[in-house]
């Protein structure tokens, strides 16, 4: 009896969780649609920029590369080998199948 009571209890919880998950899926769609509405507005698209100063202010003292690439462009970072005899290098590969990639050195000074 104890286990069967527990069984019903868990089943009720699962039903409630299923309802919650459905609601979350709906909310996610709403947010994505809301973002799309905002970003699709031509004026908003034009005003969606940051200045070099903005970026330099928050990455003080670093060399900064800004990369703009078509949707779907792959950025790949091989996991460096460790151990004697392996050079200390880190790599980034960029590959686009739908147009050029723009890379800008932000803080030329």
């Amino acid at each position, binding site marked *: 009896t104890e286990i069967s009571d527990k069984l019903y209890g868990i089943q009720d919880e699962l039903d409630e969780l299923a309802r919650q998950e459905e609601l979350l899926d709906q909310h996610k769609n709403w947010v994505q649609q809301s973002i799309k509405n905002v970003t699709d507005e031509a004026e908003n698209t034009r005003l969606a920029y940051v200045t070099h100063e903005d970026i330099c202010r928050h990455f003080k003292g670093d060399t900064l590369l800004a990369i703009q690439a078509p949707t779907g462009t792959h950025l790949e970072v091989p996991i460096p080998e460790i151990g004697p005899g392996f050079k200390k290098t880190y790599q*980034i590969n960029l590959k686009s199948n739908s147009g050029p*990639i723009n890379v800008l050195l932000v803080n030329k000074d």
Partner: protein
Amino acid sequence: AQECQNLELEKQRRLERIKHKTQQIQELILQQIAFKNLVQRNKELERTQGPPAPNSAIQLPYIIVNTSKKTVIDCSISKDKDEYLFNFNNTFEIHDDIEVLKRMGMAYGLEKGQCTKHELAKCLASVPKALEPYVLDLARGSMAN
């Protein structure tokens, strides 16, 4: 008893999925608030100072690679610029534009649960009413925790 165990596992899986989806929604809401705030800020700047000087601004979306000034970067580019190979002799970090907006404070510190009442009001006004509970959750520091 076996079925009980199976249902318990299913319950854990669902709870995990719900947690993940809630975080996704909160991340998307932060994106929307930060984007709207950036647009508003630039609108104000252009109204008072005019548009930014040529080549002094970067249009969204973009990502930033930052590395120490001492790092030597070797870069190979394919002819039609659709493939790049960078070799760094030191570590680097990569951040997307939303991370930069957060650092600029464009999400009012909501991602850290540190925004004032006035800023919270602005955040609530930036999202559809049905999504306000997520903003209030964020303001209570749910993402920071």
